[in-house]
């Protein structure tokens, strides 16, 4: 496809520099360029671009954006700025921009931005979920990996996983990935990255599922500052329709920050005949501090035997509050899958585990209206 680009840039030097990038590109044409809003508004309408690069710092940028969208309904408007700011980005996206790109950009950067933003738009209605567990070995990494696959298959949407289990993250092993970059590099660069750049820090599982892998050694935890992690989560929300975050067990700065930044927090525990119900109840008492806790925090028990609705109700009774889903005991298939870098979902697509995963994926994709599933 030939991109016909209209470039609007108030900085004379940048205007030249960016024009060159476009002019030298084999599949792009510089349809028109303007240095002021008034020129763009007055004269722009005689051109027919399919991509408009709009300087976010130009005077009246928001008005101009809306005007451009009205005049060129078939074109994608991508705002450009010299640094990434979540606030102003979300402002422009809400006003109708397809994306936000950091300048100066290279040909490849521009191409990538156009590809992604014209395909998906820049997602702002991402559903971010943190999987919290009071104690470790809750089955949450297994749950996240399989859920991500199930959600992407059902919806065809982009799904991201952040492995923020900062000392012993296992996600790369689950998917048999050899990451070129991890959350450590993403956090290091967070302050000057744009979401698009951040995408390259994720490791691809397939066209729909991407993982930001965890640290390689435990001491690297100190290199992931909490505000950087927050920036990474915030930016990732604009890359994916669904974002699943794995965190270390218990309440710690990482798990708290991730939960705070998520739309839903799943509290996950594995049934082992011990005190797991009590631990979950204690954890929920802390989350109860959130006003919207009832909608925002959900409980999942894994390794529930027998795994049926009756058990779920029994657990609901024992807990005194709803249990969102229960996962069956599937030790053999789950560990075999992880050992081979495969998904349990794929090894046994008709197993009770796969059914439970798909059930939960369904509730994430189409949240039941106003209910918790319990009558």
């Amino acid at each position, binding site marked *: 496809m030939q991109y016909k680009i209209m470039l609007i840039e108030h900085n004379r030097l940048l205007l030249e520099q960016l024009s060159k990038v476009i002019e030298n590109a084999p599949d792009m044409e510089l349809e028109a360029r303007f240095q002021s809003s008034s020129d763009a508004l007055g004269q722009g309408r005689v051109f027919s671009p399919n991509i408009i690069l709009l300087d976010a710092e130009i005077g009246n940028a928001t008005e101009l954006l809306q005007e451009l969208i009205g005049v060129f309904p078939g074109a994608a408007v991508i705002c450009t700025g010299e640094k990434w700011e979540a606030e102003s980005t979300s402002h422009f996206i809400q006003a109708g921009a397809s994306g936000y790109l950091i300048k100066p950009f290279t040909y490849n950067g521009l191409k990538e931005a156009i590809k992604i933003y014209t395909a998906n738009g820049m997602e702002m209605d991402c559903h971010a979920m943190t999987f919290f567990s*009071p*104690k*470790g*070995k809750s089955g949450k*990494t297994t749950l996240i990996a399989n859920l991500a696959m199930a959600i992407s298959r059902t919806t065809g949407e982009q799904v991201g996983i952040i492995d923020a289990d900062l*000392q*012993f993250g*296992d996600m790369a*092993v*689950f998917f048999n990935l050899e990451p070129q970059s991890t959350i450590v590099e993403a956090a290091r660069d967070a302050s000057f990255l744009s979401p698009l750049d951040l995408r390259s820090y994720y490791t691809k599982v397939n066209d729909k599922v991407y993982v930001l892998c965890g640290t390689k*050694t*435990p*001491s690297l*935890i100190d290199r992931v500052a909490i505000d950087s992690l927050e920036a990474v989560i915030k930016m990732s929300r604009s890359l994916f329709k669904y974002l699943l975050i794995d965190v*270390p*067990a*218990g*309440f710690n700065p990482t798990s708290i920050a991730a939960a705070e930044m998520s739309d839903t927090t799943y509290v996950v525990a*594995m049934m*082992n*005949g*011990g*005190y797991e119900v*009590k*631990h979950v109840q*204690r*954890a929920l*008492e*802390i989350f109860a501090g959130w006003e919207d806790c009832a909608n925002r925090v959900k409980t999942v028990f894994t390794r529930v035997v027998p795994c049926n609705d009756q058990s779920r109700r029994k657990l609901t009774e024992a807990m005194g509050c709803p249990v969102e889903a229960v996962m069956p005991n599937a*030790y*053999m298939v*789950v*560990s*075999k899958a*992880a*050992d081979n870098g495969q998904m349990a979902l794929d090894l046994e697509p008709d197993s009770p585990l796969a059914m439970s995963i798909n059930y939960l994926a369904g509730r994430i994709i189409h949240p039941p209206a106003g209910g918790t599933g319990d009558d």
Partner: protein
Amino acid sequence: MAEEKISGVVITFFSTASAVGKTLISINMASELARQGCRVCLVDYDLQFGDVANYLKLPVEHSVYDALAEMKKNPEADIRQQVEQYRYGTICFDVLPAPEFLDQSYNLSTEACTELVEKLRLLYDYVIVDTTSMFSKLNLAMLDISTIVTFLGVVDFIPTIKNMKIGNDTLQNLNYDTHKIRLVLNRSDAKTRISMEAVQKLLGEGFYHVLPNDFRAASESISTGVPLVLSGSDSVLAEEIRRLISRYTNRAYVPGPEQLGSRSEAHHKGGLLGRLFRR
């Protein structure tokens, strides 16, 4: 000259994966040492979701939180007034459970927690510390001050073994004395897809001791609140825990005659380690 105080042995249970049996084994170690007549205090430094009081069915009136508060208020006070006691028949040992409320566990300082154990070791022969499975500031401090660290692992699936390897390498980088860190495998014959030999090869080290899998005995002990070594259990697990302790305390361990025939093959694998621990 000030009175020379004898400082007791601190044994910390540590792991890089959860649910490997740190709490179960530490409780049994405390019990067995108490049974042998030692003065023992078991400290639960799994501050948020500690299970020591749960597994012993001990009501929590005094916890780590209270002990720390008392220590701050009155540095000279006898900490033994702030502990719980576990009793089974004539056997008893002291316990400092994790705080009862989560908000009490969040802001406890590592320095104070360390000082508490340093105080306790002057009062007891053995201080047993149960921890969480990560390299937290508190756990690192416990590793530092311990006499012995039981680094517990299980052969589960690949991610767990990866973490055991990373944990073992990290412990080696901390440059503790060779004899301080004791690699113990729990649940050795559980249904897993990976062999113990493969794990030892990966770790570049043999296990110091191997504890068998006995889910029934373990669950029963948790549901009754009575440690295996006290309940008169004839399980191989109780037997091997006793054997591990006798290796720690350098006391000869003579199994009852009924056990001689049924010894698990596990302790035969100690050859390599027997060489390391010629004492």
